[in-house]
């Protein structure tokens, strides 16, 4: 039996007012099952990043609801949303967004530490092996290549075993070889940990690796399911 992990209902996001009004998302609804690997594709300005940010709980919708693991995340207050985010959502950005003063290992374990949870050494080592970063664990972000930095940020997203991992153009800043590695890594975690992943990309080749593609155009879902 498949289990629904994410449901988006009538999501609308409007920026600005009057003449400067921009509708970034217009009545978007869809759902994702546990263990699915979904790619969201669309042109620049189509609203895909906005959608991802709203699902990830870092931006608020104008209207509509987002259920993750059965809970409407926008019913939560700011602090509870932050806690929900660190336990249930893993975010991966195009520009990695690592904390420059922390090394690889510290960056990866940061969400656990924020939650005052013990780091399971074995699990961490396993993850580092999966990411291919065992020999880099004590390096600072500026001592790493782009691909290595992105792998670190994937590690940070996976360490908490979140309900969903959201990746915003994870390969946008990388060369082809590094891009392939990252996609392979995401697929591997999807298979091995049954990890739900939603990935934004404008690269159709990469999108094809996903189980399902959702296409967005002018804030609306064009081709889906």
């Amino acid at each position, binding site marked *: 039996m498949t289990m629904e992990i994410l449901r988006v209902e009538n999501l609308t996001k409007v920026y600005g007012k009057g003449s400067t009004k921009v509708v970034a998302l217009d009545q978007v609804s869809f759902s994702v099952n546990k263990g699915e690997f979904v790619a969201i594709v669309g042109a620049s300005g189509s609203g895909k990043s906005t959608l991802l940010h709203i699902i990830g709980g870092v*931006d608020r919708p104008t209207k509509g609801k987002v259920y993750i693991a059965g809970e409407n995340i926008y019913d939560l207050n700011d602090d509870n949303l*932050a806690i*929900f985010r660190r336990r249930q959502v893993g975010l991966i950005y195009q520009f990695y967004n690592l904390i420059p003063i922390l090394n690889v290992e510290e960056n990866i374990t940061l969400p656990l530490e924020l939650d005052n949870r013990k780091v399971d050494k074995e699990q961490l080592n396993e993850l580092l092996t999966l990411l291919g970063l065992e020999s880099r664990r004590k390096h600072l972000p500026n001592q790493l290549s782009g691909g290595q930095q992105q792998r670190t940020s994937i590690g940070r997203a996976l360490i908490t075993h979140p309900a969903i991992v959201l990746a915003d153009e994870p390969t946008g800043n990388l060369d082809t070889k590094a891009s392939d590695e990252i996609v392979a890594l995401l697929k591997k975690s999807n298979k091995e940990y049954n990890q739900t992943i939603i990935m934004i990309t404008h690269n159709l080749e990469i999108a094809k690796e996903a189980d399902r593609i959702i296409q967005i155009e002018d804030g609306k879902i064009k081709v889906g399911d």
Partner: protein
Amino acid sequence: MNILNKISKKNLLLNKKRSIGTLIGIILSTALICATAGLLTSFQHTLIQVTLKDRGNYHIALSEYSAKQVDTLENNRDIAAIDILDEIGYAEYDNQNEVPPYLHLYSLASQKSFEHLSYSLIKGNFPKDQTELVISEDLYLIDKDKYKIGNKITLEVGIRTTLDGEKLNENNPYQENDEQLIDKTTREFTIVGIMENNYELDSYGGVGITTALPSEDESTYHHTVYVELKNPKDYEQSFSEILGTTFTEDSPVSTDEYHLNTELLRWQAFKFSDSTVSMLFTVVAIVILIIVVTSIFCIKNSFDISVTEKSRMYGMLASIGATKKQIKKNVILEGLFLALIGIPLGILGGFLAVFVLVNIVNFLLKDFISDEAVIECTVSLAPILLSVVLGIITVYLSSMKAAKKASRVSPIESIRNLSDVKITSRKLKVPKLIQKIFPIGGVIAYKNLKRSKKKYRTTVISLVISIFVFVSLNSFLHYTFKTTNTYYKDYDYNVLITSTFEDKNKLLEVLNTPGTEDYTLLYESSYTVNGYLEITDLSNLTSFGKDLLKDKLCFYDETKDEYACQDETVSRITLMAMDDEAYQEYLKELNVKDTSKTAILLDNYAVEEETGKRIEKRIYRYEAGDTITGTYNQQPLSIPVSKVTTARPRGIENSYTDGGYLIVSEKDYRNLNFVPYLVTINAEDASQVVQEIKNQFPELYIVNFDQNAKSDKAVNQIVSIFLYGFITVITLIGVTNIFNTITSNLELRQREFATLKSIGMTKKEFDHMINLETIFYCTKALVLGTIFGIIGSYAIYLAYAKKLDFGYYLPVKAILLSAIAIFLLVFIIMKYTMKRINKQNIIDTIRKENI
């Protein structure tokens, strides 16, 4: 270690420049608070020591106190020490025709009491027992051979009474034929010491004290019982208990039953202050307030900047699920780390500053003050506690604000790099003037300032505060110097002698001393009771003059057992005379031609208005040419007035009476019986003249104005060292602050600059834009800073105006100086930072995502 603590610590270590900037701010402000408080406590300590030496270590002196009451005092836990002074009596001695012909004898319980009450020995020792005696300097000077240490003197000691047998004490003046000494006993003493005159014991100075245990008999009354309290701050409660009635701050400080050591209480409990002290406290309070406000702003700015720099990091932390509380804690923790290092260093620095300042002051003052008044550098707990508390509060408040800002950073804004540039959508019109004067660079600069006000707010605020502090402190400096200067005007004489001789010829002997040639002699009436020109026709008085006479005539109504007052019906002008030569000189100065038997009327009475300002008012309606008619020594007397003036002759510049002065020539009015009163001398070498006269005539009271002026100059120097030191530190804080804000503001805009250059802005255009921005916001800061500075300087003026009568002065010089300094400083800092930024590659900067 918790991950957040780790991030705080790493942040501090990796952003060394910023951390050091903040640290310097914390150190400077803590040091300033500590130094100000430390100086205050050092001064307080010194003043207490001086007062103890001067007045003795007691808080209340109880008169005619019974031995029985002393027993209860001994059981009072609030009391630290009791000294009992008993009166032995009076003894006749040869006083060379001066009055009174008595020597006043006392006894103290122990040698320790002499020290405790600070009787200061000139020579010898305090008496060990009742056979030994310490005598006052006055007595010694009468006959140095007879009263020298080691001599034995035999005295007939008795009790002073009226002829009716009523006991008299030191407060009753000597009445030659109306009093007697009774119950005389013969006593022999060995003189063991000579001490300074103590006019509290007897205003005539002839005093001897021996050491004898007080009587144990409960019915005896002690002359005075001196009580020292354990905790002077609780004086109200302690005095109430001792006196048996409620004592409050408003109770009289001196009655028949007791008198307080108000000087000591003033410095120990900060009570019974006069207006000078309250003015001082007002000014010090304003100064401390300025320090605290400036420090808070400076430190807050540093935190603000570091938060802005790291806002991206806080956004990332938030996006991976750090709560607001966690981020706040992180920022505050950074502040506490810095406080932990900065506050102790600041306190050390503060005490070092106090130590250096105190030593400089002592060095400058060493010629003018006795060893007792040397300021001690005291390290007490109060300034440390104050600095720690204020330091922590300052750091906490400053970091709190920044922490709130950090926790408000929304993850989406930081991800998109939007946080600090919130541009309002409303249309922005660039004034035609700016477009005309400054082409493209100016327009961009103007838009920059208008659209991202927030970016500049910190810089503008720190500039405004620096200008404000500089301008208002300059006024503080100005008024302080003005205050010290008004106390010592330039007189055209430097020695003033108050005559105790009634015989003019004896005084002329004094004026034979070499160096006294240029002198003026002022005479007063020999009739101490009727020595005024009494005017009964009150129509010649102004309404103010009439007001002065209201309720002046008071008498005791026995039937009603109360004092009653009524209006005085006579106005009294004090008659004074000058030796003719000086009088003619005086007339010439006043431009008076008529020199025959005329008089000059000094008619200006100084009153303090409710606002605290001193103004002068006239008492009489007389004008030049009028004749003043009245009675003098019960005889009618008319004196024509040749001029009414406020220009006073030498010697009475600062004396005022209820009826003004009438100055005549002694030669013209010899029949009025004048006696010498004051001599003013303009001597070449004042100290030599004073020394010589003192040797020959030790009984004369002499003031050396040169000495006063010299010590005044030293005081001025000290005040300037303090104030300039203070201004330097405040300016340093300001400069640190400005440096911090400007460099970080420019560094944060690196990407924006790189973009402008990448689209083809030349270096010249770019520099032009930056310069214009600088001019725009410096001008804004100057206008605001000047307004606040003027308000601040006016507040300081008001604090001073309580005491002195001078008008407000606009600190133009300070404003101009701060304007020049601000522009120079800002341009230098801008140039320095831009040079560093310009070295970086454009594309690298644009691409730089992870700062």
